[in-house]
């Protein structure tokens, strides 16, 4: 089980719990504003873009090539950008703090 905190554009922090699936799915399930996951999680729409708390970058790791290509020219990109559809919920993500990019 992992507790993950989402900080949305209005500054609100919401902590939710998940055991399986992707972080995007967890966010959609909990109606986190700014995470839509329109393409269903196949790294095609970038509507699930998050910034990882820099201190926790080691927990999520680097994006793969497709994901980093999707992110590189995104208006809100940072060096800690990830697409949350590519993050699998697991115990390893417990305590993760994500700022929603859109």
């Amino acid at each position, binding site marked *: 089980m992992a507790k993950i905190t989402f900080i949305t554009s209005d500054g609100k922090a919401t902590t939710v719990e998940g055991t399986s699936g992707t972080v995007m*799915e967890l966010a*959609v*399930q909990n*109606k986190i504003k700014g995470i*839509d996951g*329109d*393409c*269903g*999680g*196949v*790294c*095609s*729409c*970038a509507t699930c873009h998050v910034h990882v708390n820099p201190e926790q970058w080691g927990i999520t790791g680097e994006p793969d090539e*497709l994901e980093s*290509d*999707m992110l*590189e*020219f*995104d208006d809100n990109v940072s060096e800690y950008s990830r697409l949350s559809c590519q993050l699998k919920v697991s115990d390893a993500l417990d305590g993760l703090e994500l700022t929603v990019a859109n």
Partner: protein
Amino acid sequence: MTTTKSQVCVVIGASHAGVNFAFNLRREGWEGEIILYDIDTEFPYHRPPLSKAYLTSKDETDQSLLFPKENYTTDNITLKLGVGVERFNREEQSILLSNGSIQSYDKLIIATGARPFMPPIKGIETAKNLFPMRTAEDAINIRKAFKGSKEKRVVVIGGGYIGLETAASLKKLGASVVVLEREARILARVTAPVMSQFFTQLHQNNGVEILTTKNVVSIEPNGGCNMVVCDDGSQFEADLIVVGVGIQVNTELAQEAGLVIENGIKVDETARTNDENIYAIGDCTYHYNPHYNCCLRLESVQNAVDQGKTAAKAICGEAVIYDAIPWFWSDQFDVKLQMVGLSIGYNNIVVRDEEAENSFSAWYFKDDELLAVDAVNFAKAYVLGTKFIKSGQKLDKSKISDISIPFKPNSFLAE
């Protein structure tokens, strides 16, 4: 407008458009009832994976849901599955359901989508193990028939995205696959010849036989399987046949109710029909696109979701117009194709080949205006193409095709 608790919004069709509309309507502040009807009995699911990951997944119950079940409860969205709609009465603002009951509405949303077009081929009705690929049931049927077949000879009729994705998935599972395309090249309706050539090669390299100018005229019983016969006399044995030759838009209900039909249900920029209380969204609509200055009917997830969001905002009183740039994707073997824009009317094309194998992009222009980009295993071109299409910036085509020029936003602007 302000919404009230006594109002009822009825949605016909619980797939990408209808379901996303419903959740967005709630998010936009609709206080009344929201009722979704669909004749499909499966809990609303993502369609794109059916021809891709779902076919090759180990678990056949592994459907990817659009929204988790509990969200319908927490958002108070009533889902009525396995219920068809017979007709609607615009004067009384009500719909007649297949179970005989009547449901009244304040706002009605038509998200009826489309159904597979089954071509008038002799013997198609009686062919064994012949399926289209659109619903979860279709995908489940294909899985079952494939599993139960000893020789696993598959004939795919139609070389469009659905046919090619299904061919790739079944090939991965060990089938012998022949794709029969009526036109001179696959993907003829939607892409440039350079893309058709690439995908033909990709399939052939993976052992799928792609045959063009093959017009299927009959399907005959052949022992325990089928014989697919073309007008040039060629014949193909098939244990399983998948038909993917396009769709037929579900406009009948709208038409009988007197709504304007023009290649689909005609809607304005807020997704509203000619009846102020009825909206239509998704594959079934014919709508104006401001960017391309033309009317379109689109078969895509993007259109379904975005038009649903627009209708939800419009109903809740927000000044909004639907002006999205269309995007699409397709997965075949290890290739990810991402497309943005509409290439209709292009008169020249620029291809940029990346150094990595099977990685390139095709840029469709009308004179100097960028209309669309197809990116193969190169998402950067898809993302940057989207930006350029939106901004309308003038581009230097010779720079796009020159791979010694780094792929950066400012690299390709005209001087």
